[in-house]
């Protein structure tokens, strides 16, 4: 299996990449590779293949946050991309599937209240791209390039683009509910096999009442497990 991750800027240090590799080593029991597209390779362990993030930026834009992930589909027929701020903590060897494009459905949020209620405002987003598998998703590459001008104008993030265009039209598959959990939305626990710690939506959506912990800010137990992957 080919795994991919992206790291740019200074929000996350190399330890995030190194521990992500370590978690795959512990939890994925088949041959695999991890490629990191980055603008700063210092400190990343040698088992990780490094490539320049500029290879994933055909468009000069500061919108459609993390659209770079979609460009991976052009370069590789299949694979799984992983965000740096996830923690894989149980065996995921049998998780991959044959679907064209599999995302995370935010099942920890109430769809009616959180997404459908404000659908027309353009603020809804019930999908998450922190752990995504693709297999020959040419349809998505073509749609994205054919409609790029509209997409760039309309969407501030990849997840919103995927939700409003591709979920709306029934083009996406989702991981079963027993695969992914959300630390900040589900009682600060490590549930299921993979746990998300993303907090970027809090700032992006001005959710001042929502508390969010990054992986390095989580409980001692979680941090201890995370650090164990660095060995």
């Amino acid at each position, binding site marked *: 299996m080919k795994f991919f991750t992206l790291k740019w800027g200074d929000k996350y240090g190399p330890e995030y990449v190194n521990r992500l590799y370590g978690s795959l080593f512990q939890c994925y029991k088949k041959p695999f590779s991890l490629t990191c597209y980055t603008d700063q390779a210092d400190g990343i362990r040698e088992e990780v293949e490094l490539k320049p993030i500029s290879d994933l930026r055909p468009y000069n834009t500061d919108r459609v946050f993390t659209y770079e992930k979609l460009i991976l589909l052009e370069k590789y027929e299949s694979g799984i991309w992983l965000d740096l701020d996830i923690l894989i903590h149980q065996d995921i060897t049998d998780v991959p599937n044959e679907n064209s494009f599999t995302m995370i459905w935010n099942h920890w949020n109430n769809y009616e209240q959180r997404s459908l209620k404000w659908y027309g405002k*353009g603020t809804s987003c019930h999908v998450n791209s922190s752990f995504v598998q693709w297999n020959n998703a040419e349809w998505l590459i073509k749609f994205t390039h054919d409609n790029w001008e*509209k997409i760039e*104008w309309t969407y501030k993030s990849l997840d919103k683009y995927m939700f409003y265009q591709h979920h709306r039209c029934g083009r996406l598959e989702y991981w079963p509910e027993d695969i992914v959990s959300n630390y900040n939305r589900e009682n600060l626990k490590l549930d299921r096999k993979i746990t998300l710690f993303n907090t970027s939506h809090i700032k992006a959506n001005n959710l001042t009442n929502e508390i969010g912990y990054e992986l390095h800010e989580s409980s001692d137990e979680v941090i201890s497990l995370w650090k164990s992957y660095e060995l």
Partner: protein
Amino acid sequence: MNYMSPQMRSLVYGKATNYDSVIFLACNEISDLLEDLNSMGIIASAIDYDPKFEDKKYYECKDFIFDEVKLDADLIVHFNCEKTFMFETDGDVLLVGDNKKHNGDCKSIESSEQLIEQYKLKEVYEKGDWSERATFLNGISHFWVHGRM
């Protein structure tokens, strides 16, 4: 529930009743307006991609920017220009947008001239704006233009 402000309602009624057919875009719930116009003999319909409009009378539940839609009415009214890319048509339009800078907006509308430029209007019949107070300190302005694309 109807989501139109009194100013919007006045503007829309004032323009739409001069046409034989009207399509409303990104308009949310305006069933009473559509019912009124149709009862007056005006063919009026709406396109809004919110799933709550599936199977709703007078509504087509589609994204008029990304999906295939027919914008073939005598007047096209866009209620929320700040929330979408520019649609294409060849005829009369009433464009409305605001500078609320809501989280879901694509591009804030700051003037009627901006609408004229964005939509490359060939002729402008009338334009205007109205304001409302959002908080004690901040106001929101709505800008509109009636013209031809």
